[in-house]
C-alpha cells in the first residue's frame, strides 16, 4: 500500500537502541513487517511463488495431470509433493507469504485511516510565505489606479478566490498578514479514501474467499437423458463440501429431469468439421410445493435453483445395453455413460454384470459415434455425432470384487480377479455392436444387445454463499483503484499582496500530493478564471493548452 505523498518513512526504521527487550523486538518486527519495503518484497515474492503453480499440475485445477505427473516422474513427484508443489496455492509457504502481506497491509491501513480522518477534519495548511517555490507559480501585478480603492479591492479579490476554489471542490481557509491576504485550498481527499477502500476491499476479498468459501459445496453428477437427479448427498457422483459446510443433510430439496440433450456440430465449414457449436440440456425442474418448470442449461447459462447453480460442464454418450442369459432372461439392462470423450467422442465405459449369469462379467467398452477403421485395424471415431456408431467390448469373467461391500468406481474395472475372455491376446475377437444388433457373449454365457444410444449431461452443482460478497469487494477494489489513481489531490493558493506603489500583486500556485500531471494547467485555469471574475484577462498562453482546462470550461 503506497503511503500518501506527504508521508516519509521515519528514519526510526534503523533503530540504534542497544538494548531491545521482548517488547522492543516485537516493535522492531512490527515496523519491519509494516514497512513499505517489506510489503513490496512480499508482493514480489507472491508473484514469484505463484509461478510453480502454473508449471507443475495442481490438484485443484488439474487432478488428472497430477496423476499423470506421478506416472511420468516417479522419483521426482514425491519430492515435489513433499514441497507441496502440487498444492501451491494452499501450501504453507504460499499461505505464509500472503498472510504476512495482509498483516502488513492491516498494519498500514489502520494508521493511514487515522491519519486520513485527521486530515479530513483539519483545516488546509497555512499559505507558504514564498509561493514562487510551488508548482505552476504565476504572478500578475495590477498597478495602482487613481480611482480604485485598494483596501476594498483586496478583500473582494480574496472573496472571489475563495468562492472559486470552493465551487471547484476545494476546502478553503483564509489567512492574513500585514501586507497580504491569501486563500489556501485543498482538494482530493477522495484519492486517499479510494486508496483505503481499495486495500480494505482486498482484505474483504481474502476473508470472503477464505471464510465464506468454506460454507459452500460443489458436486458432480452424470445424468442420462430421461433420468432424474434428486438433490441429495447419496445421488452425487462426487461431492466436495467446504470446511464449514453441512455434509449434505441441508441440501435444498429439488429434482432435475434431463429431458433431452441437444448437440450441434459444424458440418459445412471444411476447416472445422465436427467442432461443437452448441450444447443445450433441456430439463424439467421440480421443487416441493411448486409446479414443474421446463427450462434449459447451456454452457454459459447455468440454472439457478434452490440456492445452487447447476452447470453443464460436459456431455457424452450412454449406450443402452441389455445382457441376457442363454435362456433369454435379462441379467442387466440400462444406459451406461461412457466417459473421457476425446475430440470425436471416442469414449470408454464399463458394464458390470454381477448377477444373473453363470459368472460375474465385466465388460470394458469403447464407443465410436462415427466409426472408422485405421490401416492398423484399430478403430477410431472421425466425427463426434452419431453417424455410424459402434460399441466394441472386451469381456472379462470372474470376480468383480464388489461383493465385500467396498465401494468401487462404476467407471473403472478392477481386472485383478478377472479373466479376459475375448479381444487382443485371446482366440476370440472383441465384440462389436451396432445399434439394434445382438451378439453372443463368449463361452456361451448369453447375449448382449445394443438397444440404442442416449446422451448424458455432466452436471456440476455448486453452492457458494460468499460469491456475492467477493463480487461486492471486487467492485470496491475497482472503484477504489480508479479514485486513488485518478482523483488529483492538490493544494492551491491565491495570495493578494499590497504593492508599495498602492497596486496589487496576485500570486497563484499549487502543490501536488501524489502523481498530478494536470496541476500546472489547473493553476493556469484558476488564475485565468479568478482574474476574469475581477475583470482582467491573463493572456496566459498555457490556459487553453491543457485538456483539464478545456474540460473545466465545458
Amino acid at each position, binding site marked *: 500500500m503506497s503511503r500518501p505523498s506527504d508521508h516519509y518513512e521515519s528514519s526510526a526504521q534503523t533503530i540504534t537502541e542497544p538494548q531491545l527487550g521482548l517488547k522492543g523486538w516485537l516493535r522492531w518486527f512490527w515496523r519491519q513487517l509494516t514497512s513499505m519495503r517489506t510489503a513490496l518484497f512480499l508482493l514480489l515474492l*507472491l*508473484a514469484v511463488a505463484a509461478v510453480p503453480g502454473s508449471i507443475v499440475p495442481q490438484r485443484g485445477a488439474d487432478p488428472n495431470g497430477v496423476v499423470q505427473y506421478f506416472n511420468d516422474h516417479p522419483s521426482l513427484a514425491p519430492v515435489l509433493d513433499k514441497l507441496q508443489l502440487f498444492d501451491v496455492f494452499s501450501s504453507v509457504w504460499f499461505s505464509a507469504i500472503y498472510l504476512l502481506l495482509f498483516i502488513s497491509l492491516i498494519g498500514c491501513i489502520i494508521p493511514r485511516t487515522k491519519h486520513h480522518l485527521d486530515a479530513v477534519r483539519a483545516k488546509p495548511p497555512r499559505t507558504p510565505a514564498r509561493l514562487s517555490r510551488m508548482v505552476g507559480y504565476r504572478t*500578475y501585478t*495590477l498597478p495602482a489606479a487613481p480611482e480604485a480603492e485598494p483596501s476594498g479591492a483586496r478583500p473582494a479579490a480574496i472573496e472571489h478566490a475563495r468562492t472559486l476554489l470552493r465551487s471547484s471542490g476545494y476546502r478553503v481557509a483564509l489567512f492574513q498578514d500585514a501586507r497580504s491576504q491569501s486563500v489556501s485550498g485543498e482538494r482530493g481527499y477522495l484519492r486517499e479514501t479510494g486508496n483505503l477502500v481499495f486495500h480494505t476491499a482486498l482484505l474483504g476479498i481474502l476473508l470472503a474467499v477464505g471464510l465464506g468459501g468454506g460454507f459452500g459445496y460443489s458436486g458432480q453428477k452424470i445424468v442420462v437423458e430421461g433420468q432424474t437427479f434428486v438433490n441429495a448427498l447419496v445421488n452425487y457422483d462426487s461431492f466436495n463440501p467446504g470446511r464449514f459446510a453441512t455434509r449434505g443433510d441441508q441440501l435444498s430439496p429439488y429434482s432435475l429431469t434431463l429431458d433431452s440433450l441437444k448437440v450441434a456440430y459444424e458440418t459445412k465449414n471444411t476447416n472445422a468439421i465436427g467442432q461443437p457449436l452448441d450444447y443445450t440440456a433441456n430439463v424439467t425442474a421440480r421443487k416441493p410445493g411448486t409446479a414443474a418448470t421446463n427450462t434449459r442449461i447451456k454452457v454459459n447459462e447455468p440454472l439457478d435453483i434452490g440456492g445452487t447453480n447447476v452447470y453443464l460442464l460436459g456431455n457424452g454418450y450412454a449406450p443402452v445395453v441389455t445382457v441376457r442369459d442363454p435362456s433369454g432372461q435379462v441379467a442387466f439392462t440400462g444406459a451406461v455413460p461412457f466417459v473421457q470423450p476425446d475430440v470425436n467422442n471416442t469414449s470408454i465405459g464399463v458394464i458390470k454384470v454381477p448377477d444373473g449369469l453363470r459368472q460375474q462379467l465385466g465388460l470394458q467398452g469403447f464407443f465410436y459415434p462415427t466409426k472408422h477403421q485405421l490401416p492398423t485395424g484399430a478403430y477410431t471415431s472421425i466425427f463426434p455425432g452419431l453417424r455410424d456408431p459402434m460399441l466394441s467390448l472386451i469381456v472379462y469373467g470372474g470376480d468383480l470384487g464388489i461383493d465385500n461391500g467396498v465401494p468401487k468406481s462404476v467407471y473403472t474395472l478392477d481386472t485383478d480377479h478377472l479373466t479376459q475372455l475375448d479381444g487382443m491376446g485371446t482366440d476370440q475377437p472383441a465384440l462389436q455392436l451396432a445399434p439394434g444388433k445382438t451378439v453372443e457373449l463368449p463361452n456361451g454365457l448369453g447375449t448382449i444387445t445394443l438397444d440404442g444410444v442416449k446422451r448424458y449431461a455432466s452436471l456440476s452443482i455448486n453452492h457458494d454463499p460468499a460469491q456475492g460478497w467477493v463480487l461486492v469487494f471486487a467492485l470496491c477494489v475497482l472503484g477504489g483503484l480508479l479514485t486513488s489513481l485518478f482523483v488529483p489531490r492538490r493544494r492551491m493558493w491565491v495570495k493578494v499582496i499590497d504593492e508599495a506603489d498602492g497596486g496589487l500583486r496576485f500570486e497563484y500556485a499549487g502543490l501536488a500530493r501524489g502523481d498530478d500531471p494536470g496541476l500546472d494547467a489547473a493553476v493556469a485555469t484558476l488564475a485565468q478564471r479568478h482574474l476574469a471574475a475581477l475583470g482582467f484577462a*491573463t493572456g496566459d498562453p498555457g490556459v487553453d493548452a491543457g485538456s483539464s482546462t478545456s474540460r473545466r470550461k465545458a
Partner: protein
Amino acid sequence: MTETLSQISVYFLFAAMALYAAAFVAFALDIANRAGRVSAAASAAPSAVARRAEASESTASVGAVGGTTTLTRITERVEDRVQQAAASRSLRWGMGLTIAGFVLQVVADVLRGVAAGRVPWANMYEFSLTGTVLIIAVFLGVNVRLDLRFLGSFVTGLVLILLGISVVRYYVAVAPLPPALQSYWLVIHVLVATLATGFFALGFALSAAQLLQARRENRAAHGEPTGLRFLLTLPTAARLENLAYRVNIVGFILWTFTLMAGSIWAEKAWGRYWGWDTKEVWTFIIWVLYAGYIHARATRGWRGSRSAWLAIIGFGAVLFNFGIVNVFFHGLHSYSGL
C-alpha cells in the same frame, strides 16, 4: 464467402505489414537524424544570453479588458523547450505510414470478424491481429495528448514481429466459436485484456527509454562518454518515468478489470470464479507485478530505475502469458486454435 473474406483480410494484413515496415524504417531514420541534430546543435550551442532573450521575449504583456490597468506576466515557465525540436521529415513520414498501416489493419481485422461472423479474437491468430491493432491504436491515441512519437520504431517493430510470428505460426482458418466462448464476456473480457496489453507495451517502451536515459544522465554527471546521442532529444529520465507511470496505471486498471470480468465469466462457464487455472495464475502474477511497480514508486530506494525494471519484467510476463502460456501450458484457456 467466408474463405474469400478471410483471404482478402490476409492481403490487407500483408499490405499493413509492409506499411509498418516502411514506418519502422522512417522512425529509425528519425532516431539517426536526432543523433545528427544533437551533434549539429552541440557545435552551435546557444549562449545563455540568447536563451534568456528568448525567455524574456515570450513574456507576455497584455492590455486588460477593463481599460486602464495592465497585467504584466512576470514569470514564464521555460520547460522542456529544448526537447521540442521541430519534427523531422522522417518522423512525419513514420507517423503517416503508421496511420495508413493502421487503417489497412483495421480493415483486415474487421474482414476477419465479418468472415467469422463474430468478434475477431477467438484464437491466437485473431488475438495477435486484434492485439496489434490495439497496440497501434493506443500508440496513436496517446500521441494525441503526449508526444511519444520517438517510440515509433519500437511500436512498429514490436507489432511487425508479433504479426510475423502470428502469420507464420498461429494462422488458422475461420472456425466457429466453441460453446464455452459463446458469451458476451468474450467481447468484454478479451477486448479489455488486449487493450491493457497495448498500454503495457507502451509503458514498457517508456520504461526502457527511461533506463537508457537514466544511464546517459548518470554518465554525463560523471563526465563519462554517454553514447546514444539521440537520447538527448528525448525527455529526461524523470519525465519518462512519469509518462511510463501514467501509461502503466491505465494498463493496470484495465488489467484489474480483465481479471474481474474473467472471474465473472469463469463463474458462468465453469462454475467457479477462480480456480488457479494456468492462465489465471499468470493473470494474477502480472497483476501483482504491476501492483509491485506502482508501490515501488512510493518506496524509498525503488523510485527510478528499479521500478522501471519492474515494469519491464511485468511486460515480459504479459508476453509470456500470451505467447507461451496460451500455446504450451495445459489449462482451461486452451483457445489458441492450434
